[in-house]
């Protein structure tokens, strides 16, 4: 493996290896972004669902008259009204009826990597994911290795269980005594 300068731009393209501005940030940060709820399509109706306030209750009847009489209400349904439309059975009970895009439906995609090396460390690497947890492990292992450096320890296996630390000390001591014996010969 050869090392290249991670800060050097990749050649032969106009995108990869360049710092880029994100187009969507301004709208998101200024609150101007539009979400599905913000859509206002002329003539569209709004739907509201009212559920039983009692968990695990037996429903003996639903009175929709007050809901239907409320101003602006176009229609009100309960489960009894809708049951005949589909016999109480889900219309799409399996993936043969509920079609999802298959591999052949996906358009051709070209993958590329944007490379923006971190300026804060020699490798240019960044933590991805739970960044708060990434630093703890090397910090602890570095501290242990530092504490044991007098024995010539330069690395130790994770996890830093008492047993692993003890084994690291034992093995460092035995190789030290081997070296010392060799030196006296």
């Amino acid at each position: 493996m050869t090392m290249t300068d991670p800060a050097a731009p990749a050649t032969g393209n106009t995108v990869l290896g360049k710092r880029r501005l994100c187009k969507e940030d301004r709208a998101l940060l200024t609150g101007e972004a539009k979400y599905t709820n913000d859509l206002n399509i002329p003539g569209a109706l709004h739907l509201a669902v009212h559920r039983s306030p009692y968990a695990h209750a037996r429903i003996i009847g639903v009175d929709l008259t007050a809901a239907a009489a409320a101003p602006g209400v176009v229609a009100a349904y309960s489960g009894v009204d809708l049951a005949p439309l589909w016999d109480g059975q889900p219309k799409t009970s399996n993936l043969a009826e509920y079609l999802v895009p298959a591999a052949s439906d996906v358009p051709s995609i070209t993958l590329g990597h944007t490379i923006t090396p971190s300026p804060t460390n020699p490798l240019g690497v960044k933590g991805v994911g739970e960044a708060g947890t990434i630093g703890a492990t090397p910090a602890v292992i570095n501290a242990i290795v530092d504490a044991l450096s007098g024995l010539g320890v330069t690395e130790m296996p994770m996890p830093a269980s008492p047993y692993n630390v003890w084994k690291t000390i034992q093995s460092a001591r035995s190789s030290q005594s081997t070296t010392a014996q060799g030196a006296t010969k």
Partner: protein
Amino acid sequence: MIPAAFDYVRAESAEQAISLIGEHGEDAKFIAGGHSLLPMMKLRMAQPSVLVDIGRLSDLSYVRDAGDHIAIGALTRHMDVETSSVLAEHVPLLAHAAGHVGDPQVRHRGTIGGSIAHSDSASDLPATTLALGATYIAQGPKGTREIAAADFYQGFFTTSLEADEMLTEIRVPKMDGAGWSFQKFNRRAQDWAIVGVAAWRRGDDSGVGLVNMGSTPVLATSVATAIASGASVADAAELASAEADPQKDLNASVEYRVHLAKVLVRRALEESSK
């Protein structure tokens, strides 16, 4: 995680329990709190054909001052041992050790008699009562007999209880103000000890029990002998594993267990000697 099929009967008295276990033969087992036996049954390491449930024999749940010793009923839950004011005054080491068994759920169900009769060398209470020089009372069809803790543990999960005998009481000598210490080394609070030490000391007299240092709980007699002959704590602790025969497992090698035993015995004796 599913045990083999078994039958279940519930005993209403100690006498009935003993007669039931005699009736059902060697494959029958007593069950009290079930916190050691059931996990082994789920792993199918134990496959009793019949369980005789003694969990409701509430007359075997007690802690009593009996003069020179404290009598503890076999069905006494770990939580009741831990919080007993009688034990806090006369055998604080045992009350303290009971508070280190498993987690609160285990301590509310598991019993001292169950833990001792189960005889897992990694359990805390067998080694602790051994260190304290306890006597166990066994009841069988022919009556009751006393078994010294030092004679009780025969091998891996094996005791000197006969198949038709039931452990009914644990008698622990009063500590009379002896210094004591319980050292449990593990990585998570509710785990079994990788190595544990229960120790007490009164001048030249001492007792040291080792947890998880062999196929049985271990009485470290060499340590006590050294203390009696005036050895320093550090020198006595070097003899910690003289009677032990530790095994390796995922948590520790044999050498690491021996190392831990020496360190923990030294700490226990230092604390007991204050």
